[in-house]
């Protein structure tokens, strides 16, 4: 039934029903939209605006040109370095783990998933605190390393880059493994069987069939890990012990120590642009590889 062959009265009735329907949909989305506008768009927009002014309220690009000073450049380099290391380690550990969750014996795969979820749901501050204890000079990790004869003197595993990377990898692993697992789960085993039927060795079938099919999941997980690590604050601030300086920490100190909103905002803007650029590149790359298939 359409409004055209119904009577004029009916058509008006339908139009008003349609209007009510639209109104209802608009009304149900509105509160969430308002919240996002007030607590997200407004603050971020305001910071963008602030980043364009100096302390006296004069329009300037000085907040941005200042970021070329060595101290800021160093921070950027260190932030990207940490994000790259964490991403690479997460890929190396996460890929076999996700593979095992897909192909391993059922009960062990379930256990692997359970362990992953418990870790993901445990408070991030709690986990960071636990790493402080485990990695300290007279902690478990050093006890173990010394018992195994790997080292004679306790190593400094925390309050430095090592501790930061260990803690970050621990927090980021679920973000790597879950998308990867979803991608691997959706690969039909029939492809591997077909490869085997044509005489491919398991290694060859893995390399030429399974691996390429799992790459989109790998890209999604790696991007997520990289992007979240870029802007991470809590764990590097606690496990880095002041020796690790990331962009997020400089933003924090610019605001709470120097009340320099222009500097903090411009750093935040650059961090945000770097994040969006990263996501854009990966999305373009994924689109391209899909088209070329």
């Amino acid at each position, binding site marked *: 039934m359409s409004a055209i062959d119904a009577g004029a009265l009916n058509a008006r009735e339908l139009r008003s029903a349609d209007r009510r329907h639209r109104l209802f949909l608009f009304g*149900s989305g509105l509160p969430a939209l308002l919240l996002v506008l007030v607590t*997200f768009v*407004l603050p*971020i927009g305001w910071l963008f605006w602030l980043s364009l002014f100096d302390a006296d309220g004069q329009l300037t690009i000085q907040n941005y040109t200042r970021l070329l000073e060595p101290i800021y450049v160093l921070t950027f380099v260190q932030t990207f370095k940490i994000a790259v290391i964490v991403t690479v380690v997460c890929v190396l550990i996460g890929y076999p783990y996700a593979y095992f969750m897909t192909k391993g014996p059922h009960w062990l795969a379930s256990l692997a998933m359970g362990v992953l979820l*418990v870790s993901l749901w445990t408070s*991030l501050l709690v986990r960071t605190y636990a790493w402080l*204890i485990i990695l300290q000079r007279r902690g478990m990790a050093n006890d173990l390393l010394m018992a195994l004869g790997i080292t004679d003197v306790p190593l400094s595993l925390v309050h430095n880059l090592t501790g930061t990377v260990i803690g970050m990898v621990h927090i980021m692993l679920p973000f790597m493994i879950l998308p990867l697992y979803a991608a691997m789960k959706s690969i039909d085993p029939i492809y591997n069987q077909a490869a085997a039927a044509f005489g491919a060795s398991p290694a060859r079938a893995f390399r030429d069939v399974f691996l390429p099919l799992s790459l989109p999941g790998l890209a999604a997980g790696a991007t997520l890990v990289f992007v979240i690590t870029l802007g*991470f604050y809590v764990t590097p601030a606690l496990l880095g012990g002041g020796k690790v300086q990331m962009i997020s920490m400089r933003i924090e100190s610019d605001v709470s120590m120097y009340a320099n909103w222009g500097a903090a905002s411009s750093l935040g803007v650059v961090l945000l642009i770097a994040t969006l650029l990263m996501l854009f590149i990966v999305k373009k790359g994924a689109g391209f590889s899909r088209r070329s298939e």
Partner: protein
Amino acid sequence: MSRIQQNLSGMLRASWLYLLVVLTMLFLVLPTLVVIPMSLSDARYLSFPPKSLSLEPLFSYFASLEWRTATTVSLVTATLTMLLATTLGTAAAYSLHVSQSRLSGVLRGLMLAPMIVPTIFIAIGLFFVYARFDLNNTIPGLVLAHTLLALPYVVINVGAGLRSYDMTQEQAACILGASRLRAFFDVTLPQIRFSVIAAAMFAFAISLDEAVISLFISGGDSSTLTKRMFSSLRSEIDPLIAVVATLMTLLSILMLCISLMAQRKAKRRSL
């Protein structure tokens, strides 16, 4: 011969995989396991395993007004955030699911954006804006901020629930004379309730665990547990932290269990 060799190398590869996975599992679960015995240690400095067990830290936690207040603030904030985020998020997910307007893509992006924007950036922005509305150091301020962070997870979870739900049932209710609102509450909501429950658990856990925004916008009597923990971990470590950490861990495992049960039921329903 080559077959045996192949099997052997396959087994070797598999045992490598097993070893790697078991080690990773230990790595993943170790921090969660370490926390609980730590809270029962009477040592003044932090060592693991504890030299002797005692309930002393537990008593001093309950005796400390500061930590008790922070616990109340965190629990109240998390509960209110859960209620607000679940309500707003479910309504928004419904709107995005049903609407065919071109705008809904933009709205969806906007609602998911807080997931990828660095939290520190949102934190200083909120701190700045809140200063103008006297919302710093207040529970409503915290609830609004945490709801923003929880919203994407609710929208995604409830959206997934809606996708596996047959919308024609709601249309049928409307044809039979129910109002749109009534149809939603009586027909749709009961069928997506497990996705909604799972989303609510997410929202609670996100609020309870949120540290970066709380660090800026909470203080004094409205300090959250995470803010107190962060400050304490930064200066000298208060042995009471172990008790708080245990409390938070037990609570989040409870949330995980509820959400898993809800998700399992939601999945069964959609089959």
